[in-house]
């Protein structure tokens, strides 16, 4: 019986290998995710963190105010990989209205949204100058 139990135990080299793999994996995760993670230097606006993404949309609306180029504004918004270019504009405007954002920002977004064909009753007061 005792002899049989001894034979069923995995060999020591196997145990060593398993321990090695486990240590290697732990080391690999630590290096790959923490010490030396992948860095991206060629990202697009679609990959921006949400606050930067919001800033980007606000700036597109402001640039549209200055340049008056709807085609350019549309192309910039398409960089966000949204199904519909007007969607992020409308979404941000609504969020700012709910969150008490700056009136000037909302007005710019409302103007751009209107130019993009969005008819949102929530934005109408800002277009009429009476939010």
């Amino acid at each position: 019986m005792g002899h049989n139990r001894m034979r069923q135990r995995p060999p020591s080299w196997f145990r060593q290998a398993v321990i090695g793999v486990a240590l290697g994996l732990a080391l690999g995760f630590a290096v790959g995710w923490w010490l030396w993670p992948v860095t991206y230097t060629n990202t697009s606006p679609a990959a921006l963190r949400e606050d930067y993404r919001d800033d980007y949309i606000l700036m597109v609306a402001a640039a549209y105010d200055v340049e008056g180029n709807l085609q350019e504004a549309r192309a910039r918004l398409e960089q966000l990989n949204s199904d519909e270019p007007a969607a992020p504009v409308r979404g941000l405007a609504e969020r700012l209205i709910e969150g008490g954002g700056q009136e000037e920002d909302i007005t710019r977004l409302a103007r751009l949204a209107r130019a993009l064909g969005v008819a949102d009753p929530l934005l109408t007061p800002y277009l009429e100058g009476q939010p």
Partner: protein
Amino acid sequence: MRRRFPSLALLAGLVVGLTLGLAYTWGVNPVELTNTYPALLRTDHRLEWIRLTALSYAAGDSLERTQTRLEGLEEEDIARALETLLKEQASHGSWEALRRLTALAEALDVGVLPELLELEPTPTPSATLPPTPTSTPTVTPSPTATWTPTPTATPSATPSPTITPSPTVTPTETLTPTQTMTPTATYTPTATFTPSPTATPSSTPTPTKTPTPSATPTPSRTPTPTPTPTPSPTLTPSPTPPLLRRLEVSEKEQLCDPESPLHIAVVVQDEEGEGVPGVEVWLTWAQGADRAVTGLKPDEGLGYADFNVEPDTAYAISVGELGMPLISGLQLEDCPDEGEDGEPIAGSWRIVLAP
């Protein structure tokens, strides 16, 4: 032999594990790509980000907000994007935007080419910009040397008790207008200080009233209350030029030309009746909106813009960033004269907006 074998197995396992771990963390499931920031954008997107930031500043955003948006970006990139933008705005004649961008380039001090900063906008005929302050040290109250106290002038010329004679105070230093002070007529010495021939002394001044240099009421103290609310040191104009706020419909003319397409022409004029280019004009109706900028059809005049329109639709016109329409319910109407076939023809509109 029995001792070396397990250590080799450990080493091999370590290598395998490390390989698998790195393959997973770098290849299969790398760090999330959804939380990047502007400095990691591809070069063209990064320059576009800077460009948008600058345009937002031109639209009226604060310098603080602009600087926050540019944090972490290379000065070289910022300078490059700003230079391109300055050239574009200069060539497009958008003076207001150019002025703001020049101010931004100077404030950021990122090494924009000096010649581009010299593309200073000249005041446009519309005179929408506030006058730039000129530090003209014309206020040199020299009359103190010739001032003679007249009995009639005593009420105002009597130095208040707080004015202590101080021969060392030189008026020229204290009266030099600062950048924030717009020199106004209030800086000129008042009549009480200038010796007027009419104020001939009815009695000769007593020797005690002989004005010594120390007794001269220093004009530097009197003008201090006069400055009216001055513009901020940055001299930032309001985002909406004053002219746009003062515009109203000054003329509404029906155009009955059967050959031309139905349209609404808008002409924006300044106080002198000159066309104002670069004004954003909005045409809105129940189902949509259209936008035009004056001056894009120079043959029609600098302040001209037009829209193609449909009959039986009520339109409203507004300008600039103002949401309030200057005219609404504007519909095409039949002309007084009928067409050649006897059918009525709809006329277009020509709307003149002027202060």
